[in-house]
């Protein structure tokens, strides 16, 4: 099944997504070839509408491509049914969203443990909820509901939720997009720490070049295609906004 190098956690081949709007075809992603190695931190940058979110949704198996392959940890999820893609997502992917997407009726702990429950009982959890909560500095907020938490705290809960099942890949969709710069820095440091200390593979999409600068590699997208790769980006505040 896996004809991709074992060290690649993600590989897309000729990945294309075309939306149908009435009779009009709207290409969102065109022939994207992308590889992400195990333990890599990849940032995807680009202007709004360039196809970043579509790419992330495809990598997470939330939608089916129009064409191409999506290899996630040795499985081409483009060939799978909706139920099978859901199963891969459950076992291998952790999501972090811009708007946190916590369940408002559950406490911080409830949100984290919900992911554990969805994952099922057959999984040997490498982390206890308490360890992750402690690691992310949430111990004193554990019983708070999302509405009682700050943006940064909510995002840390979302990170804990993404981590709890030890996913092969974390997909982060503008994780600092709703945060002030100080809180955004804290969240980015957490992601960096996860990558460096736990070798967690992370794919993050962002508009923010400062956020992208913590990634090991950056790809830039435009008009549904990858047009540039950087091994590393040195953040220069004066260039902000030019991308």
């Amino acid at each position, binding site marked *: 099944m896996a004809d991709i190098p074992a060290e690649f956690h993600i590989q897309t081949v000729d990945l294309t997504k075309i939306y149908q709007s009435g009779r009009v075809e709207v290409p969102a992603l065109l022939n994207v070839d992308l590889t992400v190695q195990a333990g890599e931190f990849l940032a995807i940058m680009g202007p709004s509408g360039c196809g970043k979110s579509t790419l992330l949704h495809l990598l997470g198996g939330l*939608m089916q491509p129009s064409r191409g392959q999506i290899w996630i940890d040795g499985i081409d999820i483009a060939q799978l049914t909706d139920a099978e893609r859901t199963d891969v*997502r459950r076992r291998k992917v952790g999501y972090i*969203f811009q708007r946190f*997407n916590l369940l408002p*009726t559950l406490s911080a702990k409830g949100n984290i*443990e919900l992911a554990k429950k969805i994952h099922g009982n057959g999984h040997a959890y490498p982390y206890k909820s308490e360890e992750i909560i402690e690691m992310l500095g949430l111990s004193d907020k554990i019983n708070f509901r999302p509405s009682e938490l700050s943006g940064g705290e909510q995002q840390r809960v979302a990170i804990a939720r993404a981590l709890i099942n030890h996913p092969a890949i974390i997909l982060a969709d503008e994780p600092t997009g709703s945060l002030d710069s100080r809180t955004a820095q804290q969240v980015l440091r957490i992601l960096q720490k996860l990558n460096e200390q736990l070798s967690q593979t992370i794919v993050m999409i962002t508009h923010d070049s400062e956020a992208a600068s913590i990634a090991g590699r950056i790809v830039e997208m435009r008009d549904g295609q990858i047009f540039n790769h950087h091994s590393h980006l040195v953040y220069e505040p004066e260039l902000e906004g030019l991308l």
Partner: protein
Amino acid sequence: MESMVAANIRARPARTFISVLAVAIGVILMLTIGGIVSGTLNEYLGRTIGVGADFMLQQSGASVFYALSSATLPAKLEQKLKEIPGVGVVTPILANFSSADFGLVFGIDLASYNEFPGRLQITSGRSSLTGNEVIVDELYARLHKLQPGASLTILNHSFTVTGICRPGAVVRIFVPLKTLQDLNESQGKVTFMFIKAAAAADLGKLEASLNEALPGYKFRSTKDETMLLADTKMPGMKEFQFTVIIVSMLLSFMVILVAMYTTIFERTREIGILKSLGASRSFIVGMILKETVIISGLGVLFGIGVSEIARKAITSAFPTLQVSMTFTEVMTACVLGLLGGALGALYPAYKAAKMDPVRALTYE
């Protein structure tokens, strides 16, 4: 772990309350209306058995519910029956429904009626039933504040209370057979007859003899309720009970359907989040069904509680009315209440499970 299902129930108190109330109303309908019907029926049949007769003679096709049968049985059959070997006692009865009392009045021949084990046991006044005399039972007397010697108008005719008997007789009001026949203009006719076998008579052989002697008539065993019920021919009874059950279930079904459907739309984004976390369709369907079962369960419990209070209130306010609430009836209401709710949640659950996760996640 904090239960998401419980959290959802708590987070939407108005929705939860209305749904619980709807299920409860369904259960109350089933238990109270159904209970009044079956309670009255059971009491009626129980009291019939209490007379201690072995058989009832009726016109062929007549209902065990005397009120529904017309007085078409020739009274002279009494004599013919008495001549059949094995027949001990026969008493003819004319039943008439008194709409003012919402109950039956029996026209009886007191002498032959009192030869049965379930004879009228007079506790006050005297045992006499001729002309315009009436005997009523204690419950009826208490309800209408009657004493021996009091006057009582029933069937637009004025009677004088001669005696008050113990409750438990087939009906609560007894008048002379002849008087009721005159009032009804059904001279020489009765509704049915109770037959008691002679001591040591073989009931099987006697039944065969009765059928042979009077072919074309119905001899109904009055020995047990099951046999009477099995032969019940009350028109519309089953349809009525079925209607009550369907209306109750529909109520639970519709309210849960609307409540859960609305909730699903409210929670579109939450469902998207669950899907992004890898929740399968069965997980989402299970979550919604669990929520519904808990809501329906609360409704069922609330309904049972209110029904019990209603039962006590009804029997206290109307002592002559019986409301049955057996374990089987309660269990039936439980199952139907839960089933109605679960069925109502199926479509919303299906819709939720089928949601496109990307659209759901961007839903505002």
